[in-house]
């Protein structure tokens, strides 16, 4: 085990994947000599050269569309989108071609493309640099969508994503980029938990708290605070948003009878909406109270000085805990 930041863990994940398979190449803006704006690709150009670490023109659809052509040719491109809000120009190539070509070709063409997206807010960034577009991709059949919450997962799940024959959208929470965690660089992919599995980050008995990405840390803080008040929260780090590991999720909800979802993406038609609907379909008779979502507001991402009011914090999660437990000390008491 080595203590690494998430940036370094992803860097190591890319390095190992490229050493393991010479068909893997990395493409994106500023990823070569600069090492990426977050330095995620630092040092890779020196080791693998410009044929495999491809500094691209500033054109997201171009990056994604040429990745499609490379995949046609048998390559496994790892595409870096510089910031979450810059993925939209590539959206057409992703949903119309990356996601659908395997289906459209009756399985004759594989699209093993990994789309890395530095993701979400909490880092005081400028406009368009803090977005949470995961629901768009979860809604697109043919894509797998994962979101990591710690350096070990970042290292392992990235390698799994690159090895996967399907396209994978890989969300990297920016606000955890420089958080250190233990990473086993010798992890054997064959022994690791499969990419689609959720992780019980903290076991509990009273409430199931579903989350992913950077919100896992906030959820863990909330669980610790709730424990002090005598409430046992089971925190599930979903890790995969498509597919969702409903086996783990429903086992937890059937045990606790109460469920909360928290994410910083906007609420309307978000991943939380899908999770609540699916959990309700599967666990209606086990539920002791109505499920609750704790999400970003239905607004464009706010200015940096105000973002702390948008990204759900510990107190908003605890308020939801009160609601699912039907406690009178809920901060809002708002009838939804």
């Amino acid at each position, binding site marked *: 085990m080595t203590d690494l930041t998430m940036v370094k863990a992803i860097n190591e994940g890319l390095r190992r994947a490229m050493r393991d398979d010479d068909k893997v*190449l990395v493409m994106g803006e500023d990823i070569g000599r600069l090492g990426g704006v977050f330095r995620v690709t630092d040092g890779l150009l020196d080791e693998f050269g410009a*044929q495999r670490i*491809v500094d*691209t*023109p500033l*054109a997201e*659809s*171009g990056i*994604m*569309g*040429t*990745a*499609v*052509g*490379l*995949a*046609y*040719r*048998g*390559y496994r491109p790892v595409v870096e989108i510089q910031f979450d809000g810059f993925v939209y*120009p590539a959206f*057409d*190539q992703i949903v*119309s*071609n990356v996601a*659908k*070509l*395997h*289906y*459209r*070709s*009756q*399985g*004759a*063409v*594989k699209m*093993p493309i990994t789309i890395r997206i530095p993701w979400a807010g909490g880092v005081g960034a400028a406009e368009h640099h803090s977005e949470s577009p995961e629901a768009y991709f979860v809604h697109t*059949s*043919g894509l*797998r969508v994962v979101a990591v919450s710690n350096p070990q997962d970042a290292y392992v799940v990235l390698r799994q994503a690159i090895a*996967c*024959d*399907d396209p994978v959208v890989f969300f990297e929470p920016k606000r955890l980029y420089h958080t250190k965690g233990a990473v086993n660089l010798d992890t054997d992919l064959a022994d690791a938990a499969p990419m*689609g599995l959720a992780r019980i980050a903290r076991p509990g008995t009273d409430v199931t708290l579903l989350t992913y990405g950077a919100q896992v840390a906030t959820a863990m803080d909330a669980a610790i605070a709730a424990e002090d008040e005598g409430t046992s929260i089971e925190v599930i780090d979903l890790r995969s948003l*498509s*597919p*969702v*590991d*409903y*086996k783990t999720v429903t086992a937890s909800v059937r045990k606790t009878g109460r469920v909360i979802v928290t994410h910083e993406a906007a609420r309307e038609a978000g991943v939380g909406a899908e999770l609540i609907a699916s959990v309700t379909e599967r666990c209606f008779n086990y539920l002791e109270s109505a499920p609750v979502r704790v999400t970003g507001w239905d607004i464009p991402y706010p200015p940096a000085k105000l973002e702390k009011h948008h990204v759900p914090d510990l107190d908003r999660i605890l308020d939801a805990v009160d609601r699912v437990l039907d406690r009178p000390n809920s901060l809002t008491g708002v009838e939804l």
Partner: protein
Amino acid sequence: MVYTLTPAADLHSDVEDVARLLTADGERITDHELDPWVTDVGPEQLRALYRDMVLLRRIDSEGMALQRQGQVGLWAPCQGQEATQIGSARALRTDDFAFPSYRETGVVYARGAEPEGFLRAWRGEAHSSYDPNELGTAIPQIIIAAQTLHAVGYAMGIQRDGTDQAVATWFGDGATSQGDLNEAMVFAASYNAPVVFVCTNNQWAISEPVGVQAKAPIAGRAPGYGIPSMRVDGNDVLAVTAAMRWALDHARTGKGPAFIEAVTYRMGPHTTSDDPTRYRGKDEVEYWRSRDPLARVEAYLRAQDEFGDAFAAQVAKDADDLGAAVRAACLQMTTAPAISILDNVYAEPHTGLEEEKAWFGAYLDGFEEAAL
């Protein structure tokens, strides 16, 4: 290199600023840029190109007829564009790769498609009519200009593999307005990718004339990206062959991308859902009918005494046979079982979809049990 950056008064009518080798009347003329690329093309090869165009026209008319008879859902005709499609696609090597749009039936034909390979998708049986790996031809693209980027990416793969293959991609004049083609040309030029861009300027993007897409001849854009280009008569199969050979040689020998604007005309509607009489006049269509790509080859060969009755009869019979085979392949297609719509969404197991498949399978099985 024949290109122009000069704005045209009316791009739609100014179609004579092109390089050609056969006039509309079938007279062989000289072009110093094109001639060196077709010195080996004698009467026998011209007859083969003529035969290809006739067979393509038959596939196309069969597709139209099958749509009118309700056997295919939609058809995008290519009558009038035979010389552009055959001349360009026949210049490819088998191990090159093609990225066509949905209208390049002739490219799919030239790449060796079987009769069912032209219309399985148009009939609505599947999203693709053939295996792209077997034909070295991507699934025809409907999203406008998206395939041009795929072609460049594939060409970047060729560079990494160190082979002398080349890639060609086809798109219409409307596609030149799309961002993806702009990005494809930037990427191709920046990486010196071995890719040939073939713009089929057929004058109309559904109902929008080419003048809505461009104010100067389209071939003039490529040099701005550092890509050499040619503007050729797209109804002259010999000129298109020459231009494509030049472009492919350019790509294959490490000189990077090349661009061809083939000036031609879509004689029919955009698709079978379209009514071109609402946006263009009969005179225009008749003008282009007088420039028919098949007729000029026939006229040239007849003048050389190289187009005999036996040849004409054989080609007519081949066309009839192919038309019948295409029709039979269409009528004999069987629709896949309902459960198969959930296949091939993912290459590896996906628990969410597997769950849906289990549910749908059980649901379908319930009907079978009820029928017993």
